[in-house]
């Protein structure tokens, strides 16, 4: 009764009637229900461990998501679509913290991506996890993850984003540590959670900064608040970077990247779902959400972190032998791309890459899962304890697993950025964006270098992987080969679907111009709130600086010239108004659109060349065997070692942060026991020393009065007793002496 009172009080202002929200809530809660049922009753009472409940929940959710997507996104084609539903969650004083669901194009697209990939992986898992003793629990956790991820996507409020953010971390923890009997899995789970927490601390601080300045956490209101000038300058930069810290953790950007490769200890479907397609993209999604409030300085930092991660992770991927690790580093690298894209202001490109990457990377992981599944069977057949994930034991698998091979190849091509794939379009957009940024700000030449460097390495290591796995001879012996087989249909269907979705046609009918596709149309670059504010301030003097003509098309050369002149204008102006330089510098949003087109073309050419080059080198090394990788290993020397050992970051962290923390803990615990507790033990130590001689200390003090006070008091107590020696005449003497002293001192 009273609960209803709360419920009514909290929900009265909501417009829950809307079918969209009803569907969204269904999509959100169905997996939660599935989780609850499965975790409690799945094992004992439900057939098949209740997997069908989870699958029903997510597939129906996927269907509804697609329905919403087609009715709203494709049906209406409204770039400014926005709807939200709220209720108040926490109240203090007069303030109500309202949370709820926000639906717009971005969230709907993400919803589709998440539910689709998740649905496919649920299906895949039925085969992959078959026979596992904790089969029901796996599905329960998958459902739980789906719930958290969908919640993250739908959330309209930074605090609730943070909540689901933590919950996806939690489900990731459970799923990485799914085989917790293995120490490595348990360690990896812990590492993932703690690394995420570190990022979350930053995010929390960012949330607090935002809340303190604006009194709201609703994303829309925050953006409006920034536009209204409630927060700006340094504070906004810091807040933006703090929020981005969360993304660093979740999307495993440098320097918190170390957890993701280890997270591959989880079952492969988990790697595909969480650590490739969806959860790790949450960081990028967050940046997408807060894109409008990022200041140029913040963006720049973001761009560098992303770019560095992209290249850095790619170098490591080159030298790995574990099939999943290669993919993991590749994921890191691609996430770096996305982050860099957002950093340089290529909002659409970044988000686009998120979507395409989700598809082909999920496909790759599932494909690798299929391979591992097969290898596992084969190695088990010959009673070998070799690592089923090590590519050095594979080879020639295309013959045995044709479906896997083909889908894998499509995804690889897509990832490598070969034309006619989705990956080509999105990656090209990113590279174009970074190049454009460089062209506007030549001092940031490193960003395109990162991008293009990563591109060639990507093509190389992906084809290296394909060659080592699918081509050549099977290296575990013919006997094992007899046990190799194509995976069951439950596994191949998702592969086919995802492989298909890696083709350009689903995103844009022009394979070389993603901008003409529905995606870009629906996701135009949002106005930067910060910039708007600056623009208002600069309105009188620089009307042209805030040109928002986002669809203007000019000749490339003209654009370049225009941009140059524009740049100079800005710089000359900057001498007078320092802040506004940054305002117009911001990712080249203003005049930068023309540059984008130029850069886009240049980038396209370069990236095709680089991809070809990368593929060529891989082919030379691993297919034609024209180049001996071992020779190059020696030749590269320490560089190779660095790549192989992941540039020693794990070791560095182990000895600095982790070791430092444990050391601090031990020191403080010692401090607590030794110094604070008692201020005592110092004295007690001396006391114990004395006790060796006298023996009374242990008898009395350890007997219950271990305490400095007790000790001192005890000493005085003993002292007092000295005067009570049993000689009555001495007593009289003491008395007289004290009286005499008193009289002499005080009276005379």
């Amino acid at each position, binding site marked *: 009764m009273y609960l209803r009172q709360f419920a009514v009080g909290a929900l009265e202002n909501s417009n829950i009637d809307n079918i969209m929200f009803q569907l969204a809530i269904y999509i959100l809660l169905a997996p939660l229900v599935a989780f609850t049922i499965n975790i409690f009753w799945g094992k004992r009472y439900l057939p098949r461990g209740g997997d069908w409940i989870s699958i029903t929940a997510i597939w129906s959710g996927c269907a509804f998501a697609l329905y919403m997507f087609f009715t709203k996104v494709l049906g209406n084609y409204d770039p400014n679509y926005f709807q939200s539903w709220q209720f108040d969650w926490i109240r203090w004083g007069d303030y109500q913290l309202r949370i709820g669901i926000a639906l717009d194009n971005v969230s709907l697209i993400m919803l589709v991506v998440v539910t689709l990939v998740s649905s496919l992986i649920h299906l895949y898992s039925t085969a992959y996890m078959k026979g596992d003793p904790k089969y029901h629990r796996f599905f329960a956790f998958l459902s739980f993850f789906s719930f958290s991820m969908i919640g993250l996507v739908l959330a309209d409020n930074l605090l609730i984003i943070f909540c689901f953010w933590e919950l996806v971390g939690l489900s990731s923890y459970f799923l990485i540590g799914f085989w917790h009997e293995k120490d490595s899995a348990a360690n990896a789970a812990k590492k993932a959670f703690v690394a995420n927490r570190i990022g979350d601390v930053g995010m929390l601080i960012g949330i607090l900064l935002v809340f303190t300045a604006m009194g709201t956490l609703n994303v829309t209101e925050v953006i409006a608040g920034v536009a209204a000038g409630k927060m700006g300058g340094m504070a906004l930069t810091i807040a933006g970077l703090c929020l981005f810290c969360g993304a660093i953790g979740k999307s495993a950007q440098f320097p918190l990247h170390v957890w993701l490769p280890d997270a591959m200890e989880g079952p492969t479907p988990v790697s595909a779902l969480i650590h490739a397609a969806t959860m790790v993209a949450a960081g990028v999604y967050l940046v997408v959400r807060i894109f409008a409030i990022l200041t140029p300085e913040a963006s720049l930092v973001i761009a560098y972190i992303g770019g560095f991660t992209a290249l850095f992770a790619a170098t490591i991927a080159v030298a790995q032998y574990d099939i999943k690790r290669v993919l993991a580093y590749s994921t890191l690298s691609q996430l770096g791309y996305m982050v860099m894209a957002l950093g340089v202001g290529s909002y659409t490109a970044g988000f686009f890459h998120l979507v395409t990457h989700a598809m082909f990377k999920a496909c790759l992981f599932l494909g690798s899962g299929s391979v591992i599944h097969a290898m596992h069977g084969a190695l088990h057949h010959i009673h070998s304890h070799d690592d089923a994930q090590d590519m050095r034991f594979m080879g020639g698998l295309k013959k045995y697993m044709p479906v896997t091979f083909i889908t894998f190849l499509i995804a690889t091509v897509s990832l490598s950025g070969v034309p006619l794939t989705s990956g080509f379009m999105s990656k090209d957009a990113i590279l174009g964006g970074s190049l454009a940024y460089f062209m506007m700000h030549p001092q940031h030449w490193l960003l395109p270098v990162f991008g293009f460097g990563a591109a060639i390495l990507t093509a190389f290591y992906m084809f290296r992987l394909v060659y080592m796995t699918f081509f050549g001879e099977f290296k575990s012996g013919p006997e094992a080969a007899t046990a190799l087989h194509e995976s069951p249909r439950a596994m191949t269907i998702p592969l086919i679907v995802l492989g298909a979705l890696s083709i350009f046609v689903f995103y844009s009918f022009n394979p070389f111009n993603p901008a003409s596709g529905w995606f870009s149309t629906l996701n135009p670059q949002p106005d930067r709130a910060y910039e708007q504010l600056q623009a208002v301030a600069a309105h009188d003097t620089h009307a042209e600086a805030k040109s928002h003509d986002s669809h203007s098309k000019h000749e490339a050369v003209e654009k370049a010239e225009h941009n140059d002149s524009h740049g100079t204008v800005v710089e000359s102006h900057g001498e007078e108004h320092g802040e506004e330089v940054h305002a117009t510098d911001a990712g080249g949003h203003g005049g930068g659109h023309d540059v984008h087109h130029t850069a886009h073309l240049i980038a396209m050419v370069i990236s095709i060349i680089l991809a070809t080059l990368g593929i060529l080198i891989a082919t030379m090394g691993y297919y034609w065997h024209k180049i001996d990788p071992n020779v190059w290993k020696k030749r590269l020397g320490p560089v190779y070692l660095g790549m192989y050992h992941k540039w020693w970051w794990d070791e560095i962290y182990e000895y600095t942060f982790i070791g430092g923390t444990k050391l601090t803990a031990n020191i403080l615990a010692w401090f607590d026991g030794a110094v604070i507790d008692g201020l005592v033990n110092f004295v007690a130590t001396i006391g114990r020393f004395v006790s060796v001689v006298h023996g009374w200390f242990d008898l*009395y003090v350890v007997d*219950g*009065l271990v305490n400095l*006070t*007790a000790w001192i*008091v*005890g000493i*005085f*107590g*003993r*002292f*007092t*007793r000295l*005067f*009570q020696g*049993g000689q*009555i*005449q001495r*007593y*009289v003497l*003491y*008395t007289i002496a*004290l*009286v005499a002293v*008193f*009289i002499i001192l*005080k*009276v005379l």
Partner: protein
Amino acid sequence: MNQSPINIDLSPMIPELTLVGGLLLLLIVDLLAKRNKGIIAAVGGSILLFVLMIITISAEERVGSYLFGTVIQDGITVFFRLLFCLAGIISLGLMSYRFKDEGEPHLLILSCILGMFLLAGANDIIMLFVAIEMVSIPAYVLAGYGRKDMKSAEASLKYVLYGAVSSGMMLYGFSLLYGISGATNLPEMAAKLGTVSGTSLPHVMGLVLVFAGIGYKIAMVPFHFWCPDVYEGSPTAVTAFFSVAPKAAGFAALLRLMPVYVTLEPTYGVTAVGMITIGSAMTMTLGNLGAIWQDSVKRLLAYSSIAHAGYLLMGFAVLAAYPEGEIHDLATAAVMFYLVVYVFMNLGAFLIVDLVERNFGGEHIKWFRGFGKSSPIPALALAVFLFSLIGLPPLAGFIGKFYLFSALVKGKLFALAIIAIANTVVSLFYYVRLIRDMFLYEAEGNIADQVAAGAKLKTLGGILAIVTLIPTLVLGIFWGQLANWIQLKVW
């Protein structure tokens, strides 16, 4: 010389006269009785004290000073007389366990009480001196009552020597005061000394030396040395009596002497407040420190009683600081309230210690280990008394301390309050140690069987335990009545 007819009103002396008469009667009965002399004397003495209480209450309204100002009767007198009777009755009960066949100890206690009665009303230094000796001399004998007990003999020796020296010093002090004031009557003396501006040397030294006598009676540092030895050596029942009644009498005397003390002006840097504050601080500190390592529970309680004297002296410090007015009355009431509470809890504690000693043959702390398990009821009672001595609510001891602290805080003697707090904490060590030994430890070694047999409070013991326990518990919660009554006495 003035030969006018002398008209002496002896009516305020009715309680004392009754007591003397009863005492003589009991002496005769004692001589005639053949058996159970002690029980007869104890019962008779208790009846006598009970009658005295009735007489005292009925003579309550006769306020004023009598017999040429040597005797005063007011609420405080009445209060103390009732208190002495109460302590006397409980002590006689305790004594009758030990002295079943001897009447004299009971009679000596009664004569002690006679001295106390006079002390409570003494208003003249000669009266005071004689009354104090009247309290002391039977006490010397009582301390030596342990039959063939070396410790008891030693206790009485120490008691008599220390007591005699103290009274010698007090006497010398009185003579000095008499010399400079020319009066033996206390109010007169105070008035005389108050009119003299500044303070002369004999004034200071006289008061300091008098302090020796009073301080000895209340076991105040540095006149406390006799106390632990005498308390330990004397028979437990006697110790119980010593620890409350003569001490309370000493405080009564100090209360009477306060007007003289407050005449001290800080010419020599010595004031009554300073003297009493230092005395109080030293007393409680040394009392508590001394108690810490004691293995004899009687000795422990002796030190604890020293400490409690220190707490009580805090009230006197406030009295000295505020010679009259609201705060003065509050402090007086606080001291009196504490004394009531103290009588109950201390006698109660000794009751249980006596029980242990009678059953096991010793009061060393080892006999208390495992006592809580073998005899839960006496142990629980002792725990209550000890917690009350610590001053934990909701027990009476807390209220007593609370009252004293209120007086201190109101009188703004914060330094003393802080010392008292520190002392309360120190006192925890030994009280809690005893409680711990009773409840948390097992009996050790060869005495385990004996302890495990337990000890039971028989009829008399049970009655005495209830008589002491109920006030200790009830006064912790419903103390308003008593406080009101005491305040009425003070006004």
